[in-house]
């Protein structure tokens, strides 16, 4: 079965909790996690509602493989309408709390309304309490974690929560779990805080005991682990360097967004790369990286656990930051580093700590800082606005101070907390915002990786690499190599990645398995676990259904095909260095074709036939 078949509904306005059976018909159609919660969201909220109002709902959702021995089976997602983009938001996270929720007997938590005062939810299996959060409101997640752990006298509780950035309205605040894993994008933390919900504290001791065919499940998961182990990326590259394995690769491909995406290569990339994290520092002889670490059930273990040099200016008087914690992943290293021009590894690691501690997305934050630096360079922004900070490209001090200000929601941090789109609009230069649908780009310049341009433009949550990661094919040759500068075949590639990704996400496993696994590896695991018959074809079909469901939500929320676009800079200004020199992002060549193979009309609206085929009409 693998689902617990139970949903916990929490009405924050009234302070009540209720239990309801999971809609198993929807589970068969949407599998779990991202797909299933999206279905609930579509059914339960008005897509036009105020994302930060009581009518939005927040769902914490696990997948059928969450909490099982399937490798990476520990994922959960936070689903709601995004305040940053106005689209559906689904932010996926690893760590341990997803499995803990499942072990406590819950497929999904649904939060509705808004609490009159700050609260947090305590779950111990069926025992659920909404408790006063007065003692942790106004505190960082790291502080709150300590307090709540002690309060519940249980070192085994898992905690997801929001930091001060979310409480003070930062539009790209995430929900942080297990101190340094993040449902990071699209402002899902902002929504949580808007409901006066500080955290979910969970302990589950029931476990997952109902997979359909246990022996076949053990065999399928063991076979899957072997594939991961034998693959060079998941078996070697990711454990050794994490996602940071990409820093030098992408830089060499000329796809490294630099100086607010003005450039496509960063001269300092080698100083902030995965390899650099292994090098002993000159100052204290220790490397940045302490160890790799796994999320629950993960046999890849790409996570980075790092330290900042104790003598570094950021922490030399702050011993509370002297320990190890979640270190730089590629997306953070890029956004905090090359996009702002900062090549000080310790400063980036510190800024990343702050992002984790107070729960905001380092991609959106770094991009917004980069936009601010460009505005400063152009004289639009002055020290008067920044509170006296010299906000120059390459300034580590500007970056780390900005992080502290956003964390606490103070001063110039309140402007930066708006996100790049609103920030640039506020200062009269909207074209300098490197965003799609209001969400900042991740680390692949679409001028050098054409498929990613289409993936960004059509992503259902704004610019995002985790909705269709064609980098795998265009740069790494997975499952087969395509030319990153060509546009031919990319619409098909993007669609295939988007649909498959939705299926991976919805199963409760990590998308990084897809470096080694295809749906052919996933299907036997899902099929052995879940009621019903789960073939590769069915999973792909479910993935496509989810994609179109999300699209429908966005269209109903008021977005149109016009929003499937890229900033002018990427469409007009050719890359001036690297392999992509002379290229722009050729979105126009791919989008119509993409609409067509999606079965959408030329306005990007799914046709009646398509909806019927997918059971969405």
């Amino acid at each position: 079965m693998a689902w617990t078949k139970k949903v916990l509904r929490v009405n924050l306005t009234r302070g009540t909790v209720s239990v309801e059976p999971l809609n198993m018909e929807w589970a068969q159609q949407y599998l779990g996690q991202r797909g299933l919660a999206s279905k609930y969201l579509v059914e339960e909220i008005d897509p036009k509602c105020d994302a930060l109002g009581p009518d939005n709902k927040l769902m914490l959702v696990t997948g059928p493989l969450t909490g099982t021995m399937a490798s990476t089976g520990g994922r959960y997602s936070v689903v709601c309408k995004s305040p940053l983009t106005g689209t559906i938001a689904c932010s996926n996270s690893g760590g341990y709390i997803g499995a803990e929720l499942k072990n406590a007997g819950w497929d999904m938590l649904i939060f509705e309304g808004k609490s009159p005062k700050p609260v947090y939810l305590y779950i111990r299996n069926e025992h659920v309490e909404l408790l006063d959060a007065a003692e942790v409101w106004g505190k960082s997640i790291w502080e709150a974690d300590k307090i709540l752990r002690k309060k519940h006298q249980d070192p085994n509780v898992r905690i997801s929560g929001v930091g001060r950035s979310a409480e003070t309205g930062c539009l790209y605040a995430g929900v942080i779990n297990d101190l340094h894993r993040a449902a990071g994008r699209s402002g899902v933390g902002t929504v949580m805080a808007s409901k006066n919900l500080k955290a979910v504290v969970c302990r589950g001791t029931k476990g997952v005991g109902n997979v359909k065919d246990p022996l076949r499940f053990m065999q399928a998961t063991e076979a899957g682990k072997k594939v991961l182990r034998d693959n060079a990326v998941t078996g070697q590259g990711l454990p050794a360097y994490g996602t940071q394995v990409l820093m030098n690769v992408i830089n060499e491909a000329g796809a490294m967004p630099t100086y607010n995406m003005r450039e496509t290569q960063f001269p300092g990339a080698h100083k902030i790369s995965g390899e650099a994290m292994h090098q002993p520092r000159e100052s204290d002889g220790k490397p940045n990286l302490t160890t790799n670490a796994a999320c629950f059930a993960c046999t890849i273990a790409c996570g980075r656990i790092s330290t900042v040099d104790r003598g570094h200016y950021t922490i030399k008087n702050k011993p509370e930051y002297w320990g190890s914690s979640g270190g730089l992943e590629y997306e953070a290293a890029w956004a905090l580093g090359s996009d702002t021009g900062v090549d000080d590894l310790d400063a980036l690691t510190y800024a990343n700590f702050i992002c984790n501690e107070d729960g905001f997305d380092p991609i959106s934050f770094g991009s917004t800082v980069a936009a601010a630096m460009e505005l400063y360079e152009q004289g639009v922004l002055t020290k008067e606005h920044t509170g006296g900070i010299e906000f120059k490209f390459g300034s580590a001090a500007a970056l780390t101070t900005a992080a502290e200000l956003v964390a606490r929601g103070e001063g110039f941090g309140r402007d930066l907390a708006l996100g790049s789109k609103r920030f640039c609009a506020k200062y009269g230069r909207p074209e300098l915002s490197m965003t799609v649908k209001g969400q900042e780009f991740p680390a692949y310049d679409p001028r050098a990786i054409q498929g990613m341009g289409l993936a960004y433009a059509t992503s259902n949550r704004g610019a995002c690499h985790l909705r269709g990661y064609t980098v795998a094919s265009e740069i790494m040759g997975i499952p087969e190599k395509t030319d990153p500068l060509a546009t031919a075949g990319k619409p098909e590639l993007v669609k295939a990645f988007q649909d498959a990704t939705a299926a991976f996400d919805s199963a409760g496993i990590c998308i990084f398995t897809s470096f080694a696994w295809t749906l052919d590896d996933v299907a036997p695991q899902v099929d052995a676990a879940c009621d019903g018959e789960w073939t590769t074809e069915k999973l792909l079909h479910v993935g496509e259904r989810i994609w179109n469901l999300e699209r429908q939500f966005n269209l109903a929320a008021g977005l149109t095909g016009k929003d499937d676009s890229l900033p002018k800079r990427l469409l007009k200004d050719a890359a001036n260095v690297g392999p992509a020199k002379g290229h722009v992002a050729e979105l126009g060549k791919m989008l119509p074709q993409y609409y067509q193979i999606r079965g959408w009309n030329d306005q990007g609206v799914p046709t009646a036939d398509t909806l019927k085929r997918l059971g969405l009409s």
Partner: protein
Amino acid sequence: MLRALKLEPEKCTGCMQCEMACSYENEGVFNPALSRIKVFEFHEQGSFAPYTCTQCEEAWCMHACPVEAIVFNPATGSKDVLDDLCVGCKVCTIACPFGTVNYRADTGKVMKCDLCGGDPWCAKACPTGAITYVDIADTGLARMRAWAQRGEATSARFNAPVAKDAQNFDRAKA
């Protein structure tokens, strides 16, 4: 040849596959809360420590048991709890100075590692070789080496999955 579980925290990534394998073998459910092996996380040190019964020679638990519900298994050297005899008095839980015997309120009995009768599932499931089932002499050597090497790390550590034969996870056969 007697074998023992060799636990090497420096190789552990905190994936909890061992806890799931243990609970699945012993209880038929993926449930870390029922695992006889537990991985402790030391966040600030960036380390994880898998931890379970060492089947120590002193066998404090076994000797403290007032009703002979913990017995020596000559085949494996493990000290096994006999569920039908255990009355749940918990004396073994305080007698074990390693804290590796736990009381379970739901069954009213205690539980501890029994090496799965000589085929420990935690070791089979561990992807990085942090838990291995080796000749008993080997564990002592490793301990001495680790003592010698203790101190602050000067190089980064990472643990990739290690090659191993396909494992049999059939509860019926195992």
